[in-house]
C-alpha cells in the first residue's frame, strides 16, 4: 500500500470514528412520558420483597404493589387492600382485598397470597423482618378477607403494610429457592427487563401492560446506581438522569446554580449523637441526666449547620420528626449553645473537671470538620472526646455486636410513624442496646401503643419532651436533602422516606 493510500485510510478511519461518536450524541434528554431515568446512591440486596428496606423501596415498588398505599403526605389509601378495620383492642387487623388482580402467570392475588407473603417476610431474614415480630398468625377468612392477629397492639402496622412488609410477590415463586432475588414477580406497574438490567448498576423496567391499577406516566423506567454524587450531578446537567436525591450540601449548592434544573427540599435524616450508655456501664458519667444535658448544651448547632451543612437543614434537640404526632416545634430549640451552663451542670453532677468520652468514627458519617467541631465543643466544657477511627465493616461489629462504645454519631431517618420511632430508638434494641428505661418511658409507651388518637398523640408528645429533657440523645440538626430534576420531571417528596415513591414522578408541565 502506498504512503498516500495509508494516510488516506487513516484519515478516513478517524473521520468515521468522530462521526460515529457525534451521531450517538451526548446524553439525550428523555421525552416526558416515555422514559424516566432515576439515579440513586443505594441499591437493594436482592429483589425479593423479604429484603426490601428503606431507600431501596422504589426498586420494589416498580414491580410489586403493597397492601396499603402511603400517599406523599403520609395518609394511607387503598391499594391491594381496599379496606381495613381493627378490633377494639387493636390486636386484630382485618383486610379486605381486591379481587381482580393476578400475577403474570395467572396466579390469583388473594388472602392465601397475603398469608404466604407475610410469613415469607417474617422468616425471610431481611433487615425489616422484625417489623412483623408482633404478627402471631394470618387467618384466611375467604379469598378477599384476611385477619392479621397480633400478639399486642402495634400502631405502626398500617405503616408497615404500606412499606416493605406490605409488598406482595407471587407465592408460587417462594418454593423455588432464591428465584425472586434477581427475577421479581409481582403485580406492580412495571416489569423488570432482565436482558437490559445489570444487577448492581442499572435496573430497567418497562410498563406492565396488564396492570390492574392506574397507569403511571412513564412507559419505561431505569434506576441507575452511582457511588458518588458528582456523576449524578453531571448526569442531571446533561439530561442523562431525570431525577435524583442529593444529600451532599456542596453538590446541592452546585446544582441549584443551573437554571434548567428543578429542585425541592426535604428534611428526612437527622444527624446526632445517639447515646447508648445511659446506664453508665462504659462511661459512668453518662448515667446522670445532667451530664447528658450538658453535652446537649455544649453543641453549637448553629455554627455546625452553617459550616458543615452550609445551612442546609434545621437545628433540633429532638429525635421525633415533623411528620410524627410527638413532634413539638418548640423542642427544636430546647437546648441552646450554652457552655457556661453546661459546665455548671457537670460540676453539679460531680464532674467539675469533665471526663473522657470515646466514640467510634466512620469517615463516611463523621468527616474531619464534624469530628473537629464536636471535639472542640466538648473540650470547651471539659469533656475530652476521643475518636476511634473505624472502617464501615468493623464499625458494625464493634458498635452493635461487641457494644464497645457509649454512643455513636449517626444519620438517622425520621419516620412519620411515632411507633416506629419508639421501637427504633426508645424500646430495648439495637439503638438502645443496654435496654435503658425509666418510669416515665414505661408509663407512656403503652399509652402510645394502645391509646385512642388523642391519647396516643398526647403520650407521644409527652414522651418526646421527656426524652429531650432527660438528654437521652444529642441531636444536632435535621439535614435538608434536595430532590433534583433535569427540568422534565416533577418530583413530589414522600413522607416517611428519604427517596420519593415510584408514584411521585410526573412529566413537568
Amino acid at each position, binding site marked *: 500500500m502506498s504512503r498516500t493510500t495509508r494516510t488516506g485510510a487513516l484519515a478516513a478511519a478517524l473521520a468515521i*470514528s468522530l462521526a*460515529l*461518536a*457525534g*451521531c*450517538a*450524541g*451526548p*446524553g439525550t434528554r428523555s421525552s416526558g412520558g416515555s422514559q424516566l431515568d432515576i439515579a440513586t446512591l443505594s*441499591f437493594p*440486596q*436482592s429483589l*425479593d420483597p423479604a429484603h426490601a*428496606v428503606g431507600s431501596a423501596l422504589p426498586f420494589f415498588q416498580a414491580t410489586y404493589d403493597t397492601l396499603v398505599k402511603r400517599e406523599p403526605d403520609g395518609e394511607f389509601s387503598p391499594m391491594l387492600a381496599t379496606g381495613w378495620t381493627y378490633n377494639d383492642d387493636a390486636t386484630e387487623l382485618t383486610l379486605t382485598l381486591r379481587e381482580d388482580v393476578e400475577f403474570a402467570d395467572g396466579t390469583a392475588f388473594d388472602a392465601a397470597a397475603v398469608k404466604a407473603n407475610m410469613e415469607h417476610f417474617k422468616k425471610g*431474614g*431481611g*433487615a*425489616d*423482618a*422484625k417489623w412483623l415480630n408482633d404478627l402471631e398468625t394470618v387467618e384466611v377468612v375467604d379469598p378477599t378477607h384476611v385477619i392479621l392477629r397480633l400478639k399486642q397492639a402495634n400502631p405502626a402496622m398500617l405503616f408497615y403494610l404500606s412499606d416493605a412488609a406490605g409488598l406482595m410477590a407471587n407465592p408460587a415463586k417462594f418454593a423455588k429457592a*432464591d428465584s425472586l*432475588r*434477581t427475577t421479581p414477580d409481582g403485580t406492580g406497574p412495571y416489569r423488570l427487563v432482565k436482558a437490559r438490567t*445489570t*444487577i*448492581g*448498576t*442499572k435496573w430497567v423496567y418497562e410498563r406492565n401492560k396488564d396492570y390492574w391499577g392506574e397507569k403511571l406516566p412513564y412507559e419505561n423506567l431505569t434506576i*441507575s446506581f*452511582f*457511588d*458518588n454524587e*458528582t*456523576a*449524578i450531578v*453531571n*448526569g442531571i*446537567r*446533561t439530561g*442523562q*438522569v431525570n431525577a435524583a436525591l442529593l444529600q451532599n450540601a456542596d453538590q446541592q449548592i452546585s446544582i441549584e446554580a443551573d437554571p434548567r434544573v428543578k429542585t425541592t427540599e426535604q428534611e428526612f435524616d437527622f444527624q446526632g449523637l445517639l447515646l447508648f450508655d445511659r446506664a453508665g456501664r462504659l462511661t459512668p458519667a453518662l448515667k446522670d441526666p445532667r451530664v447528658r444535658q450538658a453535652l446537649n448544651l455544649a453543641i453549637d448547632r448553629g455554627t455546625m449547620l452553617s459550616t458543615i451543612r452550609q445551612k442546609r437543614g434545621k437545628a433540633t434537640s429532638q429525635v421525633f420528626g415533623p411528620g410524627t404526632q410527638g413532634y413539638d416545634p418548640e423542642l427544636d430549640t430546647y437546648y441552646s449553645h450554652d457552655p457556661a451552663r453546661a459546665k455548671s451542670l457537670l460540676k453539679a453532677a460531680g464532674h467539675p473537671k469533665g471526663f473522657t468520652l470515646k466514640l467510634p468514627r466512620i469517615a463516611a458519617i463523621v468527616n474531619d470538620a464534624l469530628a473537629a467541631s464536636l471535639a472542640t465543643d466538648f473540650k470547651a466544657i471539659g469533656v475530652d472526646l476521643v475518636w476511634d477511627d473505624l*472502617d*464501615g*465493616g*468493623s464499625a*458494625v*461489629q*464493634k*458498635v*452493635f*455486636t*461487641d457494644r464497645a462504645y457509649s454512643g455513636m454519631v449517626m444519620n438517622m431517618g425520621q419516620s412519620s410513624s411515632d411507633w416506629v420511632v419508639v421501637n*427504633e430508638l426508645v424500646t430495648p*434494641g*439495637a*439503638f438502645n442496646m443496654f435496654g435503658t428505661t425509666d418510669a416515665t418511658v414505661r408509663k407512656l409507651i403503652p399509652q402510645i401503643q394502645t391509646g385512642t388518637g388523642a391519647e396516643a398523640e398526647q403520650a407521644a408528645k409527652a414522651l418526646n419532651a421527656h426524652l429531650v429533657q432527660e438528654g437521652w440523645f444529642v441531636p444536632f440538626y435535621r439535614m435538608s436533602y434536595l430532590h433534583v430534576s433535569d427540568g422534565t420531571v416533577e418530583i413530589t417528596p414522600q413522607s416517611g422516606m428519604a427517596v420519593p415513591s415510584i408514584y411521585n414522578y410526573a412529566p413537568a408541565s
Partner: protein
Amino acid sequence: MLKFIARRIAAGAVLLVVISFLSYLLLSVPDADVGRQLLGQGADQAAVDAKNASLGLDRPVLTQYADWLAHAVRGDLGTSWFTSEDVGTAVAGRLPVTASLTLGVTLVTTVVSFLLGVWAGVRRGAADRFVQVLGVIGYALPGFLVTLVIVLVFAVNLNWFPAIGYTAFTESPGGWLSTITLPVLSLAVASVAGVSQQVRGAVVDVLRQDYVRTLRARGLPTSRIVFRHVLRNASAPALSVLGMQFVGLLGGAVLVEQIFGLPGIGSMTVTYTTRGDIPVIMALVMFTVIGVVLINLLVDTMIGWLNPKARAA
C-alpha cells in the same frame, strides 16, 4: 518459545493459588460482621448470627477457603452476598467496560506516544523540547483534575459527549464510542506523557548506534531507517511501560469510572471491597492475577520477537 510460554503459564497457575490463599486470609481478618451489614444496624443479634451462619461465616477460615477453592476450580465463583447475583455473571458483565477503557487507552497511548516520541527523537531541537514539556505537564497535572475538566468542558458545557454511563458495543457502536471517548482521553493524558518520554529516550539512544550510522552512510532514507530499524529496537522499553500501565488499568481506573459512572471492574472493586463481599472480591483478585500474568507474557513475547537477544535472557 513454546517452552517459555508453558513455563510462564505454569508459574502463573501457582501464583493464582498462592495469591488466592493469601487474599482469603487477609479478607477474613477484619471484623466485618457481614450479617449485620446486610440486615442493618437495628437487626436482632439472633438474626445476624443466622445470616452469618447461612453465609458459612461461622466456619473456620481454612474451611471457608477450601470450600471456595473447590467451587472455583469448577468455575463456580459463588453468589454475591450483597446483590445475590452470580459472581461470574457480575464480573463478566463489567469486563467489557474495563476492556474497552483499557484497550482504548492503550491504543491511543501507543499511537500518540510513538508518534510524539519518534518525532522528538528524530527531529530533536524545538520538537524535542516541546514533547518533553508536554510530558512534564501531562505527568504533573493531577488525574482527577484532568478528568473533571474534561467532563465539564466536553460533556456538561459543550454537550459533545455524554457525561456518564456506558453503552455496550453490541447495543450501539456509535454509542459505545461516544461513552468511552472522554474516559479514554482522561486516562490517556498521563499515559501518553510517560510512554512518549520512554520512546523518545529509546529512539535517541538507538539513533546513536553505529549500525544506524552505517545505514545512513549506505544512503537509506531516514524514514526507512526509523520505521524499519530504529523503532523495532527502541520499542522494548516502551512496551514494558505499556504493559505495566495496562495492568494498572485493569483494576485501577477507579476515579475515572466513578466520575463517568462506568460500571467497570475498578468501581466494582471499591464498592464490594468496602462491603466485604468476599465472593466478589476473590473473583476480582483472580481476574486481576490472570490478567497480569497474561499481559506480562504477551509483553515478554513481543519483546522477544522484536529483539532476538532478549529471548535468550
